[in-house]
């Protein structure tokens, strides 16, 4: 951790919300991505907010035994699980896994979007089709890794799987993707 971040961390631990916001703003994309991949588009924003609120409460106990990113990913996972439990209880569970990735609605949101390089073509359709055919746990780690750029440790924290399991899921996911894309002539 850089010295500037360490200073922000100490301030955040003492209750400085501005320091907290400055420290955690760079983590917002990955936390949003984790929430989006696990609970789906509808609940992702609420889960992201809840994640940072819990991080705010727990930050005085953060001891830097893991990176701040990994620590926050773990909180995000817990928030996702709580959200899924609540939704299940209410009987309106629509998760990313059940609903399928919400490709179209996300693709429409072009404004201030980081990935404006997105390709809209038959190739992209085929890739999304192949991803949709992967088992949920494989698709999740593939997207977190190759679309959202999370590290193995962060994916492990976000999914609750061991790092070895993450690597294995990526391996099988990649292999399956390769076969599917080959079949599609890509």
């Amino acid at each position, binding site marked *: 951790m850089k010295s500037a971040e360490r200073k922000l961390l100490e301030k955040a*631990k003492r*209750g400085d*919300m501005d320091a*907290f*916001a400055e420290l955690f*703003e760079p983590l*917002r*994309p990955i936390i*949003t*991505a984790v*929430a*989006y991949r696990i609970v789906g*588009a509808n609940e*992702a*924003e609420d889960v992201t*907010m809840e994640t*940072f*609120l819990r991080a*705010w*409460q*727990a*930050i*005085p*106990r953060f001891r830097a035994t893991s990176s701040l990113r990994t620590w926050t990913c773990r909180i995000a996972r817990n928030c996702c699980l709580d959200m899924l439990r609540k939704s299940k209880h209410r009987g309106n569970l629509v998760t990313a896994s059940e609903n399928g*990735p919400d*490709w179209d609605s*996300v*693709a429409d*949101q072009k*404004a*201030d*979007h*980081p*990935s404006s*390089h*997105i*390709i809209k073509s038959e*190739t*992209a359709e085929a*890739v*999304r089709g192949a*991803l949709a055919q992967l088992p949920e746990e494989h698709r999740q780690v*593939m*997207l977190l890794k*190759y*679309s*959202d750029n999370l590290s193995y440790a962060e994916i492990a924290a976000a999914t609750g799987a061991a790092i070895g399991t993450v690597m294995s899921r990526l391996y099988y996911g*990649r292999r399956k*993707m*390769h076969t599917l*894309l080959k079949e599609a002539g*890509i």
Partner: protein
Amino acid sequence: MMTEKQNRDEELISQSVQTPAMRDGDGFWADFKAHASLRSQDASVRTGPSAFSLWASGLATAAAVLVAGFFILSASSVSATQLRFIDVKSEHSAVMILTSDPEAGTVVWIEGLNADDPNGGSS
């Protein structure tokens, strides 16, 4: 060759799948502050005893109990122990045991100690 294909597949994924859209930072953190002000932060464990110090004090207590137990057991197991009293007719203010060998001991008693005397009184 396989790595090249894998890299291409990974690149295709990143190009074909949108990362989720996000709210603007200012709006998000303004909302965050409004909600966070209603929640209190956890107490810092740094102000209380650390897990290590709790563990160490527990260990020290257990060790002290063990040592005391052994001492009591060893003292009570000597059945031939005798207490001897020696009366020393001397006015004194304090007594100190300097040595306590198995065969003999040295006891010092101090006479005429006067705490008010800056020189410590006479002995």
